[in-house]
């Protein structure tokens, strides 16, 4: 009954979850079912018409997944969230609500390579045109704005180089342009950075990474900040105009400050179909219960490893914004004071060959294409995640040929440093 605001750790454990109404089960049950029975024809009709709260079919809502959604919405400080099958699916669903064929959106050049591909190629076939801007030169976003611009997209901590984006400065550009700012907060998680506090209107995640945290489940999520007025200037007809598939309901009028999340669910997810498995939702929300503990440990370990590497004679450079000589250190201290995350890159004096040799000699770090696992991970982006980019784009996104990326896990840092030492000396 009180209005005490619980801390992040309490929300990570409790938000969205409540003992099961029928059994009293304290852990959230896995509702592994495709469908839910209707009370009667009238109940069915009112559910289909978005007039009642309730479940119809797991492609649209599921009680296990709903717990995950509310939990991430609470941790990010948003009004609502929608979980989907992957981070890529989250981006697809978000942009489908915002863009009509021929529209543009502005995206940071420094993104996960998979996002660069999705925006450059897959989205092009829908007539959605990406315009690139440089996160280290915020006015480049402003210069890219046209009357077709419908959104701005950045990563809070950029993959792979771990650079920090000045979210508030880009948010100011978005506000001036009258478009929403979308922030991919995957590498930071809300434990390190809460983009909504800095002006983001929509937050997306690959849940696969630090939120799930154990490298066992794919997932993605969209968080609605509840901050954007979709009715201005008829720029977002999906939100402001009557929807023919729901008998003329206007989503913003009906759902207010969580209308965007509803649009993503009842239009995007319903019609495109990338639903999250309830089992994955269960594993991911179990992971989130320990997010604050893991994320602090990930960051502390990463800092120790980065410091050790930067003193190593074979290392040419370490790009970790948690180091005081890094060009992003001031931004890191402002946006991520608890730690600069666990993903960063470094380059070796021996170039490409030394990088390949390091990766093959590591015994504890796993060579694979993921980040945000409890286990420490290593990859050579130029030959893997960013291999489909041309050389210029590779270098621009921080994935040049001599670059090795680490995702530092939650093992003992002494063991991680010992592994790197033996591999560098091998």
């Amino acid at each position: 009954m009180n209005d005490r605001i619980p801390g992040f750790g309490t929300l990570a454990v409790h938000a969205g979850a409540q003992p099961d109404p029928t059994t009293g089960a304290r852990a959230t049950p896995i509702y592994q079912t495709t469908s839910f029975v209707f009370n009667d024809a009238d109940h069915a009709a009112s559910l289909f018409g978005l007039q009642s709260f309730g479940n119809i079919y797991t492609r649209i809502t599921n009680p296990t997944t709903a717990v995950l959604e509310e939990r991430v919405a609470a941790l990010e400080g948003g009004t609502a969230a929608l979980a989907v099958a992957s981070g890529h699916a989250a981006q697809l669903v978000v942009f489908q609500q915002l863009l009509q064929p021929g529209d543009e959106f502005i995206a940071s050049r420094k993104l996960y390579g998979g996002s660069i591909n999705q925006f450059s190629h897959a989205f092009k076939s829908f007539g959605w045109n990406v315009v690139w801007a440089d996160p280290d030169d915020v006015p480049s976003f402003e210069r890219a704005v046209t009357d077709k611009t419908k959104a701005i997209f950045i990563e809070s901590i950029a993959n792979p180089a771990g650079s920090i984006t000045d979210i508030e400065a880009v948010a100011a550009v978005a506000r001036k342009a009258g478009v929403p700012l979308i922030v991919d907060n995957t590498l930071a998680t809300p434990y390190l950075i809460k983009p909504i506090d800095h002006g983001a209107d929509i937050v997306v995640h690959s849940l696969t990474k630090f939120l799930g945290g154990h490298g066992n489940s794919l997932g993605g999520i969209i968080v609605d900040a509840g901050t954007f007025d979709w009715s201005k200037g008829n720029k977002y007809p999906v939100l402001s105009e009557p929807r023919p598939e729901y008998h003329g309901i206007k989503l913003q009028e009906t759902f207010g400050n969580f209308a965007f999340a509803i649009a993503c669910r009842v239009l995007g997810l319903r019609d495109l179909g990338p639903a999250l498995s309830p089992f994955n939702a269960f594993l991911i929300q179990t992971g989130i219960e320990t997010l604050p503990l893991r994320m602090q440990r990930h960051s502390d370990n990463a800092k120790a490893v980065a410091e050790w590497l930067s003193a190593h004679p074979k290392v040419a450079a370490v790009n970790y914004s948690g180091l005081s000589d890094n060009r992003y250190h001031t931004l890191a201290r402002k946006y991520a004071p608890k730690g600069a995350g666990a993903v960063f890159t470094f380059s070796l004096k021996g170039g490409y060959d030394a990088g390949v040799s390091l990766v093959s000699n590591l015994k504890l770090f796993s060579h694979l294409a993921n980040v945000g696992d409890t286990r420490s991970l290593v990859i050579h982006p130029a030959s893997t995640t960013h291999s489909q980019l041309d050389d210029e784009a590779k270098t621009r996104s921080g994935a040049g040929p001599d670059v090795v990326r680490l995702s530092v896990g939650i093992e003992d840092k002494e063991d991680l440093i010992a592994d790197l030492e033996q591999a560098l000396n091998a």
Partner: protein
Amino acid sequence: MNHDSYNDAYIREILNTVKTVAMVGASPQNVRPSYFVFKYLAERGYDMIPINPGQVGKSLLGKPFVASLQEIGRPVDMIDIFRSAEHVMPIVDIALTLDPLPKVVWMQLGVRHDEAAAKLEAAGIKVVMNRCPKIEYGRLSSEIQWMGVNSRTLSSKRAPIPTQGMRLSLNRSSLGGGSTAAADRVAQQNNKDKNDTA
């Protein structure tokens, strides 16, 4: 009082205590929000009265339409205004002639009229603006969580199974207010911008 954001305690007390609700602008069309808010509140046990002069002689879910607030003929606890802001003041003026006065005047999502609110509050009537009672009831009971909405409440007690006509417990512990800090901030700014232009 501040109408940019509301404490959960304020909303909870209203939803827990009012029984009779007159809805001004109730629509017989089942795709209009007024229709399904009316239906939801009736299902949750509120004594609902539909007000719409164009529908007199017909009824809404078994409740006969009434032409105006004066013609209800019995006391109402709450008036829910489903009309846009420019229609609010005349409705409020009528509400202030009722005897006994209503305890609460609630204006729907998107409807805000600070002058009308001040007038009502001066007469001791509680005011809620730019909110939906269905959303607030769903939020405080956590029923709305099924749609991925942040209820801003926590509970370690077994959840109720909602059934037709059942009142849900709204007594979950609240996280400091009806909306998120970011959404509140924007609401406040928008209202300030509106007043500055006016």
